């Protein structure tokens, strides 16, 4: 776990996935902190990375970029990547940025990565 002025990232390791649970505000100032946490998770043996956005109070386009970059790296290396739905402001930005259809969304951080991911499959393609 790391803490910052406004963003808290809890790292939870499960047998089939690493979950990064985000709490607070993911903005331009906090984006490097999350990028570093994701990079750290990616250096280990990683089958799937889940970003739990359920307690994320705010995201901006800089935060969104970090999510999209992680999604892209997962796609290139054949890993699974998913997010959980966030509060209204988070979902609104995902929607207007047009990335909602790109990213695989699962109902909860511990939900099945296959079934709950819907017809598109976990890689969203």
């Amino acid at each position, binding site marked *: 776990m790391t803490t910052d002025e406004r963003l808290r990232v809890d790292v939870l390791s499960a047998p089939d996935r690493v979950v990064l649970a985000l709490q607070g505000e993911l903005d331009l100032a906090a984006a490097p902190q999350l990028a570093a946490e994701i990079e750290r998770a990616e250096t280990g043996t990683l089958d799937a990375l889940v970003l739990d956005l359920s307690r994320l109070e705010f995201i901006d386009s800089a935060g969104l970029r970090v999510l999209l970059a992680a999604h892209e790296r997962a796609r290139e290396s054949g890993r699974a990547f998913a997010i959980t739905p966030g509060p209204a402001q988070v979902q609104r930005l995902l929607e*207007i940025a047009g990335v909602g259809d790109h990213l695989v969304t699962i109902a909860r951080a511990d939900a099945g990565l296959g079934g709950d991911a819907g017809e598109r499959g976990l890689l969203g393609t």
Partner: protein
Amino acid sequence: MDRYVYSAGWERAGLCGVDRGLVMAGLPNVRLDLLNKPENVLLVRETLTGVADATGLQGAELGDIRTAVTEACNNVVLHAYAGGEGPLEVEVVLADGSIEVLVRDHGVGIARGADIDAAEPGLGVPVIEALSDAVAFDELTEGPGTAVRMSFSAPSAQALEPAVPNGNGHALGVLPDFDGRRASGTAAISVAPRVLARSVIPRLLCVLAARAHFSTDRISDSQLVGDALVAHARTRSDEDYLHMAINVEPRDLELRVGPLPAGGAERLVLDSDVRGLGRVLEKLADHHTVGEGDSAETLTLQLLDPSRRP
């Protein structure tokens, strides 16, 4: 470049074309003077949340305004000064049924700055456009810089008129400063009317006290000091703006309030008496000093958190 210089919505509203002089609907209720540092964008969002508290702005409306204004500020942080430091200025006007926010820089601004990212177009401008009811990007006429002017429909918000005697907003030009020492932590704010200051100032001080690594108790003290300043500061004539400059160092928060009328600084300290607590400003600030100028005074308060000293 043309791609980024446009005025969406204002044309429909009849506000574009003839007048490109960045005239807002009225005098700003809030003016923030910050440095274009990433962490300062949070201060802008906290200010907007304070505005919502005072005006009854609803959650979804506030969410959109916070998002769009954040993107405009991010552009100043990332692009306006080619990686260097410079001013980030924000003004908020509460009009009837709408909120207008102006984000201004004195660098290359969003217009030319956005070209730097031409190979990888940013999301910021489309997000601003999607979430605001009208947006205009204008190059400043009096020097280099750009102003992004956004208008948001807010039926649930009530208008709050700043009281200024002759209505010329001259008071906004008299911001207190730290003698040119605009250190990285410095912020300056002018806010009116007091009902708005009451929800904005303590909130900002809370964030800045946390940034100064204050303990929870000392953060509460900083909020109480903010409450006392808002309640008791009497500015010159009938002008209703509260002007404050804040400097943040590790475990050290310095607040400067002014301009105050002659004798106003000491009176502010005396007036902060709360039954059972005594004079809040004297009790909670480690030092207070009165600065006297030609026609006005300033009160400087220093709050320290020695318990957190290394």
